[in-house]
């Protein structure tokens, strides 16, 4: 347990010292939201707002998590002796989840500020925020595994897109549906089945990654 905490802390420290990763992600979110703001000129309706939010979050998630394992290749042997693959995966996943939660909140704030503030109100905010958090967690969990697979090929970013997009679609659809329902003010008793679906996918993918990751890591 302490090993995992140390690894998550290490990731944060590395990224904080370097600042290129965090900086590039921040810039990515802000500039894509701003481009959307300029392109749409406030002529936007609720489903479009919601879909755009998730598309931008999806692309940011791809950007953020594609670097998960690429830096580890060089210190592979060292890590191999230091920590078991399962623990390494969990720490990477936790770090990505934290990163995605920050990105999700940030891009929600950006959307509220720049694109439109008429869809979020005090009534539906917390439920929508729940869907954003859950979506961010799911994206992080799925993309950590995909990035681990892609890091073993020569073409990291290209493979991320080829492998990741088709695989992420079922989860993304459930997420868009759930957040859209919460946005139009449907309570949990009406949209709860999507919540259940998303949680089930997250748990399943998490377990599957836990079981399969050692086979990728082993060289």
């Amino acid at each position: 347990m302490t090993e995992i905490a140390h690894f998550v802390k290490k990731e944060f420290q590395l990224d904080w010292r370097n600042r290129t990763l965090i900086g590039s992600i921040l810039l990515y979110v802000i500039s894509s939201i701003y481009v959307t703001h300029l392109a749409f000129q406030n002529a936007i309706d609720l489903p479009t707002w919601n879909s755009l939010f998730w598309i931008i979050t999806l692309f940011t998630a791809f950007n953020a998590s594609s670097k998960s394992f690429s830096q580890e290749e060089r210190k592979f042997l060292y890590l191999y002796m230091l920590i078991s693959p399962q623990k390494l995966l969990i720490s990477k996943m936790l770090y990505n989840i934290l990163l995605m939660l920050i990105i999700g909140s940030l891009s929600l704030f950006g959307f509220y500020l720049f694109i439109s503030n008429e869809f979020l109100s005090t009534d539906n905010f917390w439920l929508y925020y729940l869907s954003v958090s859950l979506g961010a967690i799911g994206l992080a969990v799925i993309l950590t595994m995909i990035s681990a697979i892609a890091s073993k090929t020569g073409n990291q970013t290209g493979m991320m897109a080829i492998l990741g997009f088709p695989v992420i679609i079922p989860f993304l659809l459930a997420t868009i549906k759930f957040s859209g329902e919460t946005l139009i003010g449907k309570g949990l008793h009406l949209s709860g089945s999507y919540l259940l679906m998303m949680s089930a996918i997250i748990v399943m993918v998490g377990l599957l990654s836990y079981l399969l990751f050692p086979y990728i890591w082993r060289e």
Partner: protein
Amino acid sequence: MQNNWWKILACILLIYTLIVGLSTPIEPGLKSVSSLIISPENTSIHVEGYNTHFLDQKESQSVTLRNDSGQWVCAEISKVISNTELLVEIDYTPKVSQAMFRLFISNSLDGTMEYSDMNFKGAEVNAFIRANSACSNFTGYSKDTFAFPYVRNLYESIRNLFFHVPMWFAMIVIMLLSAIYGILYLAKGEIKRDIQSETAISVGLLLAFLGLATGSVWAKFTWSEHTAIWSLQGWWVDDPKLNGSAIATLIYCAYYVLKRSINDKISAARIAAVYNIFAFVMFFVLIMIYPRIQGGLHPGMENNPAFSSYDLNNNLRLVFYPAIIGFILLSIWIWQIRSRIAWLKYKREYED
């Protein structure tokens, strides 16, 4: 011979599917009427039939209308133009308890055929009328020969059920086998299991493309009847099963790209096996969840992709179930042959 009984079974089932599925006639039915609205000025309706024998069975033929409240309206055949066309003269009644009627035409060869949604316009609806007994001139016949049901706008293409749907069933089975062989490879590390897993995906992709092709043709001629045959419109429609299968095809095409992009044969096999298992789970989630999120055009799809809700009748089932088993066995057979070839090629390349 003892080990090959299932190959013989596959052949028998597929030949049975081809012969019975393609040669059984479609039940006669009513294709269209000149007007759905019956008013005092418009009581003469031109009816078009499908596979009917209006002219040959002129003597035994009779016609009537009935609504869901059990009320009958009498009608007579004023003119028979051809075997598939006739004119019906309806006795207009001013008082009905429900305006929607069904038109029945019956003769001794075709049985009783119906056309729904005939609307009595201008009649006093909800007027209290005692249900009439059947019109005296109407005799209902039932048809007892073996035939497939007549479904308006499907017509003869209902036979595609025996080819299009089993393709997808076979694909799911083959992809499951591929995932199982992926697990076996990870567990034992025998390269033969990896080759079997990969060839299973190639067979599954073949089935996926065949399923997409048969589905595309079917969609064009049933859901998109109004589009011109030479136009590109209508070959692809927006439906969750269609989108789901397209995404599944993408997922498995990515498997090949992944495998080819790693140079080391052993680590390529291992990583591809991991992705294969991962992809199968997501593929399964996709086909289970996506249709529930979005209703579509496929039958039985309000929000449930269950098989029991297909509107199948017993005659269709008699061919449909053997066809499923036949196509699954055939694809396993193809898979076996292809993996044997791939294994021999591998041995020649690496073990000499």
